[in-house]
């Protein structure tokens, strides 16, 4: 059994190794302006069930170069989903947005939400997990120590416990964001946003390729979305691609 695990580990590490070299050769293609071959290579890495923010980012760049702006935005958004602090992707998205047909004024966020968002994004999700675990385990050790040495240490124990709980809440919140904040990119040239989940309902407005949508709900083939300026509606599932 142990051998089997070992062998699978070796094989999987080989496959990552092969994909690493594939990644590098795709980078080379990109710098030689052979964007389509680079795209094929990057995509094959993704099909191998591997991912990284940089991989998505580079693929987004390729699509930008081949003038497929909607795909570029899709992959940049995917990059940001994995690493919200990826500044290169943020800047590139802003450039892409200038090329889109739809211009949407983003609703300003409430200041405390903005602040909270900044705090959440200041370090990565894994760091939040590690910090939470460190604080709770420290609490445990201090408690045991206090018991053995007959010291009270109430302040230290209480503060560590509360810190751990706060960190835990933040971590859970980030995770919920990741799971619940589903968004999508319009992949067809133009799509109508309807007032109800049916093709017969009245058309509210039209959106064009590359626009980002936030998914709220889904009924059958229809998805309830809202766009950055707060407008809501229903869009046909096949017109969009979820990030």
């Amino acid at each position, binding site marked *: 059994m142990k051998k089997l695990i070992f062998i699978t580990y070796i094989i*999987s590490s080989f496959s*990552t190794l092969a*994909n*690493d070299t594939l*990644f*590098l050769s795709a*980078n080379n293609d*990109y*710098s030689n302006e052979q964007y389509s071959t680079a795209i094929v290579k990057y995509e094959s*890495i993704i099909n191998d*069930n*591997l*991912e*990284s*923010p*940089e*991989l998505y*980012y*580079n693929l987004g*760049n390729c699509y*930008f170069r081949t003038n497929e702006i909607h795909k570029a935005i899709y992959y940049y958004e995917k990059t940001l989903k994995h690493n919200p602090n990826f500044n*290169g992707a943020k*800047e*590139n998205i802003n*450039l892409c947005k200038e090329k889109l047909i739809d211009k949407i004024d983003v609703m300003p966020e409430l200041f405390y939400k903005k602040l909270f968002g900044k705090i959440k994004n200041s370090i990565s999700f894994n760091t939040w*997990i590690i910090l*939470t*675990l460190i604080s*709770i*385990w420290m*609490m*445990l050790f201090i*408690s*045991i120590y206090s*018991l*053995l040495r*007959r010291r009270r240490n109430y302040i230290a124990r209480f503060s560590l416990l509360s810190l*751990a709980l706060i960190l*835990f809440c933040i*971590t859970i919140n980030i*995770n919920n964001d*990741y*799971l619940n904040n589903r968004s999508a990119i319009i992949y067809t040239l133009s799509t109508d946003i309807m007032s109800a989940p049916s093709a017969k309902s009245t058309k509210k407005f039209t959106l064009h390729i590359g626009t980002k949508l936030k998914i709220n709900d889904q009924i059958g083939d229809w998805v309830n979305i809202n766009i950055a300026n707060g407008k809501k509606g229903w869009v046909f599932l096949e017109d969009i691609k979820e990030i």
Partner: protein
Amino acid sequence: MKKILFILFLGCCFLANAQINFSSTKQNSFQLRTNKLGAFYITKIERTSNGKKSEQCIINGTEINCELISRCQNGNCNELENYLINNKILQISKPINNQKTKNTNNNNKKVVSGNQLFINATTNKREIYVGEQIIVTYKLHTRLNNLENYEIPSEPNLNGFWKKDLPISSRFKQENINGVTYLTAVIKKTVLTAQKSGKLTIDPMEVTCNTRVLNQQNRSRSWPNFGNIYSLKKEFISSRPIVINVSELPNPKPKGFKGAVGEFNISSNIDKIELKANDAITYSIKITGTGNIELIDAMKINFPEDFEVYDPKINDNIIEGGNKRSTKNYEFLLIPRYEGSYEIPSYTFIFFNPKTKKYITKKTSKYNISVLKSDNNEKGYVPITQQEIIESNKDINYIKIDTVLVKKSDKNQNLKLFYLLFFLPILVIIILRIILFFKKDIITNILDRKHKIANKIANKKLRKASECIKNKNFEGFFEETEKSLWGYFADKFKVQIADLSKESVESYFNDNNIKKDVEIRFIELINHCEFARYSPSNNKDKQMSGILSSAKKIIIDVESELK
């Protein structure tokens, strides 16, 4: 087929204002009418005066040689025909309809027919590219001789075109169209530049014409008659719409193409290439050619950053909206602020030639400019306001070279581990608390064991001293206590007997982090023992047990401190 008719008119009397004029003329009129030639009159007047016979031939009011007519009478009419055409007496015309133009005068009852007054809109091209130019000419045609004036109430709607009106001379000219003579006047001439592709329609132009009409009521009254009184009658006419097929410029459009269509030439000129700092250079770019030159934007040239560049002065000489060879001259004033050698890059001008259907790139020449040190300002130019660095061309960030590829993981699995690791310590603490609640002693016992060991050691060391108490050997007791304390100290800290002193106690105690209080008590106790040994005292009995217990305590304390 030609027919010749002779009409003879004889005599005519005019009676006016009760005055009688009598005149007698003998006229021989020939009317030549052919199917081909239309209508004209030949008048042949034969006169006999003083016995001489003279002939005079008049055709449509012009005197001609009678010989030609006599030849024509004999069947040879070609010469006559040519003569008439050459002298503009006869116009070859095919009557379009049978309407006679005889009564066009005073004809106020008749509706002006399309043949007599109309506008013709013509373009020089029908198939063009976006940005290409066409000329639309609106021509007023009339066969009326009572046309007073005309006016254009509204400009035609030109969707998708950029238009420029050209100056026109609105003088009437004679023009022959399909054999019918018209008076024509160009009333509007516009250069249109197509701005978008597709089938664009030039809307019809409407013109209001005023014709002079003799007032019928006044005329019918024979008395009094103050001459002819005219009124103006309005006629509305409009041209036909024209559909222009505008095709998109072929793709791919080269980078830097800004929509210039036509045939151009570009040249640049600079007035000096060597100068001192803070002097001015005049750099000019001249575009000549035909096309939509008027729509060429101000050009952007990447001048060196240390040059102060002023907005270009644009002089243009555009003829017929660029339809004829025009020029556009951009004059830049440049002031280099620092010494050094600079390069004015060449400007690339790309245009589409609709004739060859190709994009053509033309470049101006490069100039190398050497700027010398300025005379008056040693330090050079010091800008008052600091310049901001402006990113001229935005582009995406470059790709990332390194990455750590990871398996697309199920985030939930990681999260389960996280929950486990988070709640485990909490659980452990809770369990510990519960255990302690029920079995408080366990921990105390663990802690007490050490205490017990320390107690044992103390008892062992002080055994002799406690024996002395039993024997009531007072001197021996103090001696033993002191000795055993020193012995304990020496054993514990591995001190040589010779080194034993109160100072060394302090240093060793300090080194092992033993509380100051214990140290003080230790020294006090030893002092006390020494003192008690040599001093007579009555209540040594009572002291002994106290000293023993305090010695014990000191040893226990030291033991627990040292662990």
